[in-house]
């Protein structure tokens, strides 16, 4: 019955041992590269800049990098929250703008104290989030399109009330308000302190609290979250409102630093924030958006622009590098995921 059929495919059955060992090694190297590839590249850049530009490692330059990217970090953290919930927010620029704009108006036209103005700005940002949440939860428009709509509406409002985008200066700004950007707490620039506090809040919220678990569950598989009794709509409202309120803070810092509000200036942070979130996600074992990854992503963008600047190279190179790193990190992350999926789905 079980006649030994000398099938041709059996001939090479003795070979595997050597090639298997080789493939195990290459797999391990591949794993390490794809998991930590970004960190390696990050340090490679840092070392390169340190060698080529003496000023790079100067402590004051490093503080410069942190300070210059505090605003982006706050925006990227907010974006991390939104992306973790399975959405995206294209209107963070609007919330940034509204934060600074309304804070200035509150102080200039209504003589409010700096603290009240801060609150007004944050509430103005939150209002943008409320609109987003309403569109997404009530009208069931996808986050991409809902926030795109908000972006257009918000841009138009700014142009209408600033005669087509004219700056709104306020030179007589109180020192207290101004110190949100230029001051220091125990010798650390306020911007960095604010960004660090926001970072800690987001870390606790997203990585250590039950709410973070639920938000991740909603983002990964919404129907499961719903069936498990999680109030999905409630969480989505929270996510969009909280994210917008957070980025309003960065708008306020911007205006405090410049003593004026420049309409539509928040937009420039949108794409960097998205890139930082996804560079960060590519480092997570399950490719999830995460606070530490986002921080690394933002630092990377900061280091590259600073380094290019110090070396006197074309600043425009930065965008190209950002694009290459983003695409490279994602490609590696997905290549690795496919590999693993194949290995285990028996």
């Amino acid at each position, binding site marked *: 019955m079980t006649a030994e059929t000398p*099938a041709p495919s059996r001939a090479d059955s003795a070979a595997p041992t050597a090639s298997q060992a080789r493939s195990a090694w290459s797999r391990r190297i591949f794993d390490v590269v794809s998991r930590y590839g970004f960190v390696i590249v990050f340090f490679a850049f840092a070392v390169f800049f340190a060698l080529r530009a003496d000023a790079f490692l100067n402590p004051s330059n490093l503080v410069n990098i942190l300070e210059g990217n505090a605003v982006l970090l706050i925006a990227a953290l907010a974006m991390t929250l939104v992306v973790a919930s399975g959405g995206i927010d294209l209107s963070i620029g609007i919330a940034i703008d509204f934060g600074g704009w309304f804070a200035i108006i509150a102080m200039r036209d209504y003589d409010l104290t700096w603290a009240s103005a801060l609150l007004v700005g944050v509430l103005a940002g939150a209002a943008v989030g409320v609109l987003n949440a309403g569109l997404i939860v009530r009208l069931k428009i996808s986050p991409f399109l809902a926030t795109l709509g908000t972006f257009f509406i918000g841009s138009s409002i700014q142009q209408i009330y600033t005669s087509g985008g004219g700056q709104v200066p306020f030179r007589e700004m109180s020192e207290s308000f101004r110190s949100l950007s230029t001051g220091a707490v125990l010798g650390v620039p306020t911007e960095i302190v604010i960004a660090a506090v926001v970072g800690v809040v987001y870390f606790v919220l997203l990585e250590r*609290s039950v709410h973070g678990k639920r938000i991740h569950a909603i983002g990964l598989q919404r129907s499961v979250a719903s069936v498990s009794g999680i109030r999905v709509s409630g969480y989505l409202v929270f996510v969009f409102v909280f994210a917008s309120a957070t980025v309003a803070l960065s708008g306020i810092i911007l205006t405090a630093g410049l003593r004026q509000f420049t309409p539509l200036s928040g937009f420039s942070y949108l794409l960097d924030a998205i890139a930082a979130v996804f560079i960060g996600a590519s480092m997570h074992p399950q490719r999830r958006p995460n606070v530490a990854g986002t921080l690394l992503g933002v630092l990377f963008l900061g280091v590259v622009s600073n380094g290019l600047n110090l070396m006197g190279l074309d600043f425009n190179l930065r965008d190209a590098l950002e694009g290459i790193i983003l695409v490279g990190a994602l490609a590696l992350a997905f290549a690795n995921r496919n590999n693993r999926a194949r290995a285990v789905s*028996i």
Partner: protein
Amino acid sequence: MNATGEQHDADCALRMEGVTKTFPGVRALDGASLSVGRGEVHGLVGENGAGKSTIIKILAGVYHADAGSVSVDGEPLERIDPASVHRLGVRFIHQEISLVPHFSVAESVFLGQEQTGRLGTAKRAMRERAETFLAETLGVELDGRALVRDLSVAERKLVQIARALIDGRAKLVVFDEPTAVLAAAEVKTLFTAIDTLRRAGKSMLYVSHYLNEIHQICDRVTVFRNGADVGVVDLRQPQQPQVRVPEIIRLMVGRDIGDLYPQRRRSERTRDALEVAGLDDGHRLRGVSLTVGAGEVVGLTGIIGSGRAELVDSLYGLRKIRAGKITVDGEPARTNSPARAVRSGLALVPRDRRNDGLVLDMTVADNVNLATLEEVSTLGWLNRAAAGRRGEELMERLDVRPRGSHAVSRLLSGGNQQKVVLGRWLASQASVYVLDDPTVGVDVGARSEIYRLIADLAQAGAGVLMCSNDPAELLGMCDRILVMVRGRIIADIAAADTDHEHLTALATGGAEAA
């Protein structure tokens, strides 16, 4: 030797010998053999992880075997890739239904094999051929223009089968768990289709967890255990299922598992855990009333389209209702969202485990704790040690394998995934458990453990509504069985007063009476 081997091969539609396949850390197949005779319906059974899927994926060219030989229709294959197997007439009906939701039935059937006329694709011809094929070979009337997303899961399955067979060149058809999503009546339709194909001289390989199905339609069955074949049982000899099925189970698990269904102490009903009165959604449900007593297991069966799925969704707030009252533990329950339903004391184990049951990319511990995160946290701060501990405890209690609450849920087998979903609700202490097809795609060993858990839940005083289309399971587990036909409950019978045939007749024959 060689000559006899070849002669033997010539009688075989498929012959796989000594197939070995190793994944990093796992030997999935260890010299497994499988042969399907010409014109034969050949069963393949085994517990999850026995290597059934792997050998089928090797045949499909998805994986490449480390060693072993494969011949189709007497023709040895050296390098198997999807195109070459397809050319030889091997067709796969995969367990997962991969259809484009926004395509029509006809478009789906002809996807990738479109017929063309003078003016591009011959839409009308394709529609007619698809409809005819579905009606004649598979016995289902479907509008070729209907969109896939509007079809029931069972109808999608049939479209998937039609797609594989429409070119008429299939010689060997491999069915991977085809009935997992089907109701009793559709199973019959599928079996009729398989019989038609058998008469047309096609060979079939039929992979299933349902041993009664295997017994019903297969000529022979190969049993896999731990990556190798451990026996072939010939089912053509006239023997009762009572003799054959235990024999197959013994081969599968390598031991007697005793009674599949646990002995339950049936107690007197004291109070109602769930009471539903006049539930109506103005569409599929027409005044459904039912009760489930505390400590009682009530079965609910009904073919696709009977409203069974809609009833479950309405109970759980996944579907809007127009009229009716739901009472849980004597308290009127507002169940217009799943979150509310959970707070009123309901728990749902959904039928679509992979989409609605588990966050596949989360760890087992996270999934177990998902519904009850408050209990392992203080003021919103997640106590990760406590969460992990509870995950471990439940895994221990449910015997989830492999152990380790930090494993990603995607990597578990179907049976173990289902245990994790159950585990989530065990932690929640709900008063009513709605289990929708809780053992679909679950192997015999894990199934008996799930049954024991359900019995434990009832013993602890919860009401269990168990929705299923497996009459054997309903008869084995339930105190009472409700039968749904066309949006109404047409029968409410004690499990002791009915049998397999009677239940099937009620679920399907009821339609004629109405």
